[in-house]
């Protein structure tokens, strides 16, 4: 069964209010919370479900990709804790007002946000791309998909 949940766009300063309003409508369990970096924009998304029915709501907020921050919802949804930590670590988004944001997987202080489109894909830069040469020997496409020119300059 495929079920699609409409995305509701929320302004950053209404994030907590919108999430608690969803909870008041019955969707009071955090299924997941994560972020999406489309290169043009950075979004945080949360999927809230009503465990008593199959109903769910998906809230989305566009963030400032230079200084991404948003209020934490952990005081209202304790189940968001792990997701906010992971999203902080992977996308460099600060969740304001929460007690701890210590890293789960990567060393703190590296300033690295591996799931941001700006994070260099080192292995892709160093590994020879099998798609570079064509039959004529001409290099039709210089860079593999997803690899930015500025990552290769100091090679």
């Amino acid at each position, binding site marked *: 069964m495929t079920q699609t949940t409409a995305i509701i766009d929320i302004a950053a300063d209404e994030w907590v209010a919108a999430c608690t309003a969803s909870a008041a409508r019955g969707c009071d369990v955090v299924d997941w919370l994560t972020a999406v970096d489309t290169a043009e924009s950075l979004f945080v998304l949360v999927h809230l479900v009503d465990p008593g029915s199959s109903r769910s709501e998906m809230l989305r907020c566009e963030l400032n990709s230079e200084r991404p921050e948003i209020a934490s919802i952990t005081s209202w949804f304790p189940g968001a804790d792990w997701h906010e930590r992971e999203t902080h670590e992977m996308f460099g988004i600060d969740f304001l007002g929460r007690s701890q944001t210590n890293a789960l997987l990567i060393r703190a202080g590296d300033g690295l946000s591996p799931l941001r489109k700006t994070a260099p894909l080192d292995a892709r830069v160093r*590994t020879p*791309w*099998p*798609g570079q040469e*064509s*039959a*004529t020997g001409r290099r039709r*496409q210089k860079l*593999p*998909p997803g690899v930015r020119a500025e990552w290769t300059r100091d090679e």
Partner: protein
Amino acid sequence: MSDSTPQRNVIALLPEACTSCMVCVRECPSWCISVESHVEEVSEEGARRPRTVNVLDEFTIDYGLCMYCGICIETCPFDALAWRDSFDYPSGDRQGLRQDAVDLSRWWTTGS
């Protein structure tokens, strides 16, 4: 998807259909396909000048890297790749998991 859709077990190559266009090589997210080819001129009767065609020299899939996403099969503009049901091809070493054009084309007819 019908019941007759082959499982994602092994990828078969039909070398006669492959034009060495490199589309699959460039789209493969795992970078596990490699194609070697050269250009030949073909003169045809009545044609004013010879046509140039790509001739496939080698086609390799490294099953040690493949994640069976099927993107190569979906994107091939010439239907030169297809799933086959066989799964009896593991190898004890990395090199044995690299299948060349001879290995891959054998699946086309024998892969059930």
